[in-house]
């Protein structure tokens, strides 16, 4: 770990003032200990620093800023939580469990119980991909400003099957899969003030900028995460599939949020995690469900549609049937 300065930010405004780069920028353009970056719990940040692929000059801690760890639920407004809410807070929230089943499931299956007690939702959404080449100091890959994608030509069994052209890493947040399915929004605060954007637009594929995974700019901090209220008839579920049931990264995870009228599906949002560099909406599959009475046949058709356009790599073709089956199970479980 490199030596760095440390400061506890007393307020969001001051934190924004103090910081000068996002972590991706610190890894690519502001290298050599010059970057000033913010940290929440620091579980991912410390990981990157320990690997020697991030060398910040100053770390600005957000934990002392009051009010960022609040979670609230309102029947009209929906769910809102601050960036310092931990994964365990979400997992243990009765409101989340009751109204946002897919989010609860995603929280309950993330990382380890210890990490869930520490890791914050802000940090979770901002964390860097787990691609083993990206995490290795011995591989200067595209995401770190290099010219080679080692995964495309190397070991890619856990990589993307969609949007694989530039960088086939998968987005590391399995919670994001559920949040995007619920049409969550994120509030970013920067020097110019606040902006609210849908999470589906917050995450950006490698084609936009291979070195980062979202639209946050050098001096922006996530200050709120919001989910719309759930209506009656909302059915949701989330399934994560890792090689292990205990602590493991996802090989594939699926979140489904459906608006049901009896057996008939009025609206559906289907999101794949660990399938692409972003949490990936499967609109074509959603269309297959909308307006239909859900049957095994309809689900199977949707599953086929969901995998259209997949471009698996040399070692991850198995993810295609895996996702098909996971989607079938998630929808079946959601409508229960």
């Amino acid at each position, binding site marked *: 770990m490199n030596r760095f300065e440390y400061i506890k930010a007393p307020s969001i405004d001051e934190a924004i003032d103090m910081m000068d780069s996002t972590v991706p920028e610190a890894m690519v353009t502001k290298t050599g200990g010059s970057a000033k970056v913010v940290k929440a719990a620091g579980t991912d940040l410390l990981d990157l620093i320990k690997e020697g692929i991030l060398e910040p000059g100053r770390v600005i801690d957000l934990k002392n800023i009051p009010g960022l760890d609040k979670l609230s639920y309102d029947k009209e407004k929906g769910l809102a939580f601050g960036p310092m809410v931990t994964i365990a807070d979400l997992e243990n929230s009765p409101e989340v469990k009751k109204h946002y089943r897919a989010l609860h499931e995603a929280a309950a299956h993330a990382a380890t119980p210890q990490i869930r007690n520490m890791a914050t939702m802000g940090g979770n959404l901002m964390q860097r991909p787990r691609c*083993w080449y990206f995490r290795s100091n011995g*591989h200067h890959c595209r995401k770190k400003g290099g010219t080679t994608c080692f995964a495309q030509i*190397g*070991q890619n069994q856990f990589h993307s099957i969609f949007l694989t052209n530039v960088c086939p890493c998968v987005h590391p947040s399995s919670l994001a899969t559920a949040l995007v399915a619920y049409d969550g929004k994120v509030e970013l605060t920067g020097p110019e003030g606040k902006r609210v954007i849908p999470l589906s637009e917050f995450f950006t594929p490698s084609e936009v900028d291979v070195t980062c995974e979202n639209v946050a700019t050098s001096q922006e901090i996530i200050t709120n995460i919001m989910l719309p209220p759930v209506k009656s008839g909302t059915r949701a579920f989330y399934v994560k*599939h890792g*090689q*292990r*049931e205990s602590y493991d990264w996802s090989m594939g995870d699926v979140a489904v949020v459906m608006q049901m009228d009896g057996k008939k599906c009025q609206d559906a949002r289907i999101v794949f995690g660990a399938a692409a560099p972003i949490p990936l909406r499967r609109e074509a599959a959603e269309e297959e469900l909308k307006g239909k009475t859900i049957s095994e046949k309809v689900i199977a058709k949707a599953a086929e549609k969901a995998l259209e356009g997949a471009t698996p790599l040399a070692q991850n073709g198995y993810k295609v*049937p895996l996702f098909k089956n996971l989607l079938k199970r998630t929808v079946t479980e959601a409508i229960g």
Partner: protein
Amino acid sequence: MANPNKKKIVLPVAPDNQAHGPVKHLHSKKVKLPYGVPGHGLTEMEREVSIDEPPPLPINEKLNVVGKRTKRADAIYKVTGTAKYTSDIQLPGMLYGKFLRSPHPHARIKSLDVSAARRYPGVHAVHVLKMEPGGSVERDSGHDAPAETYNIEELPLLRYVGQPIAAVAAESQYIADEAARLIKVEYETRPFVLELDKARQKGAPIVFEKVIEDEGNEGDVGVTAAEDQEGNLRGPSTGSFLGGPRGDVEKAFAEADFVLEREFRTQVQTHCCLETHGVVADWQPDMLTVYASTQNTAGVRDDLAELFGLPKSKVRVITEYMGGGFGSKFGAGHYGVMATILSKKAGRPVKLMLSREEEHISAGNRPNSHQMLKMGFKNDGKITAIDLTSYGTAGVGLGAGVGRIAQDMYECPNFRTAQYDVFTHAGPGAAFRAPGNVQGVFSVEQMIDEAAERLGLDPLKYRDVIDKHEVRKLMRLKGAEAFGWEYKKPGSDPGPIKRGFGMAQGQWTRFINLNSSATVRINKDGSVAVMSSVQDIGTGTKTILAQVVAEELGLAAEDITVKIGDTLYPDGPGSGGSVTAGSITPAVRNAAYKAKMDLLGQVAGAWDVEIGDLEMKNGDVYSRSDSSKKMSFGEAVKKMRTNQIMATASRPDDYGGFEIGNGIGYGRLGSVQFAEVLVDTETGFIKVERVVAAHSCGRPLNPMQVESQINGGVIMGVGYALYEDRILDLNTGHQINANLDQYKLPYSKEIPKIETVIIEHYGAFSSTDASGIGEPANIPTAGAIANAVYNAIGVRLYELPMTPQKVLTALGVS
């Protein structure tokens, strides 16, 4: 149980270690020892033993401490965090070491400059490894030496990512890490080869340009054999201590009713010791003291004494607690030697513990294998011939054979094997819990399963036809009972999630390390200690030593202080090969018996009775013939003429001698495991629900600890079967999952319900008649799971680990 297959034993040993039969003792006595399995025709065996031997121990049922579930002696220190491991040692003035390692799989060093590292504040010593005899030990004269540019001829050719180049010692780990990065190296990279199959091909990059053979010594290993294979290939190994090829294999295949021929592949597994390899070395003018995370304190001492030209008496190696070895922690290690050099240079103690990444890439692994197995069968089930050709790579090292399962487990008159080592540009292998046998079971036991199906037999019953091992037969019986074994047609479950049952068995040779000694000391205050350099690597050695001494002296296990893991005490065995319990406990019992006789002699004098009339039991010393003569142990020791009674004993030969010599005992440690799995045919996910593990380890000294070790073997087998895999990037030679995040091991939810069946089996071999269990517990698991997976889905998997990816591919879904 002599090996029925044995036609001719070729002794792979020099004349002074020749085999010998029953030992003739100058002063001997005949004793009767329990023999067989209680409840299953237990009898007695008469043996002629030295008169120094203690009287035979009855079966466990008749004992007070041995054979009883006894709390682990050091558990309290482990659960309170007070146990000090090597990694916890802090000495005044201690420095921290860090290696610079090769980032390339094959490269020559063009230039190397350590001056910046040497000048870095807080650095006290820098050492560069050089490739000439003696040069690697002491060349660099200390921390104030001028910057040196090294002659590239002296620097090693780099053959794997992670090969050590140099190391620094500094005042903190941070400083050491930073300084190591300041060593400037220019590399000339070379073509490399990582894959087993590619390394065998013509034109593959060569790992060792020219192999020097020792003339007149080209035996079984060392010659490149097959004509169409080039370079990078050594072998084949065609025999072992169990003999060489036998019978006429080709003829037997021709005469067989059917022949099965299959290819199997197993992966590279890394040991993942939770405490990484490492030492704290403290070089002092009068004594080199090394705290080492090792399975063999005496071995580390011997290595360091030899290398540094020190008398063994001036090297002390201490291993009070160690966090896992699994075969990989033998010898001083490159880290141990380096820490010693750095300590000598800096004049301060140096701690050098490998990082987690270094542990994966440089501290050993279980080599992979590609096995071509061919077996011929008669319609009555008899195996007519076995032919096994295997290739495996231990990277730049050797020892990638697949063990002796095919050769030794089933009766078969015609056998042949050719096991080749293949060099690749990867980190060297190391012994790993039942080296070879785990790989061997995966192929042989799947083929036996397949033959059973072909014969229309229940695979469990089929083994009764072909397996002559009596104890294993009992294991099958009792294990099947506990498991509720019922043969189910493969792939017969409806629905996407299919249940399967499978079983497999294993074998391990009983082996004794005769260089096993211990001292028992009785103090006048009534305290008792047992001492040996043998180490407790987590198996529970401390506890069983306490039990054995307590049983002999009529005390409780917690009355005995166990001081082990220190070479100041008598030499104990290294803990590998499941030899520890069988090697050290007879020495300990014999030492306790000697000390007891000494004490009783003094008591007998005071009471004026015959020594043979005295007994020690339940904390008392008493006369069998005169009930008035009785006192507590505490009172008895007051009769001692001196403040201490001390007795030392060493492991005698097995009662009845050795099968082959060199501590290779008669009998095989068999094992049988049953597995129940669920296979999700839509996701490829396999879950091991339940395992029944039936084992024997001679006399079980502490059934609770035996259970723990069996659990551990099974769980490690689950990891090997389903999750673990060292993944190398083929373009850079780096292990990309050199962590515990992507190198996948079983955690809590992957743990099946495990039931152990322990067969108490007496062989009349020694004063404790105990054997080890570490290896046998790990041998059959992956094979049993593979057979259960086949039973579930009706499609056989020939390659480990059985990942979702492989299951889906095998099912033709992907």
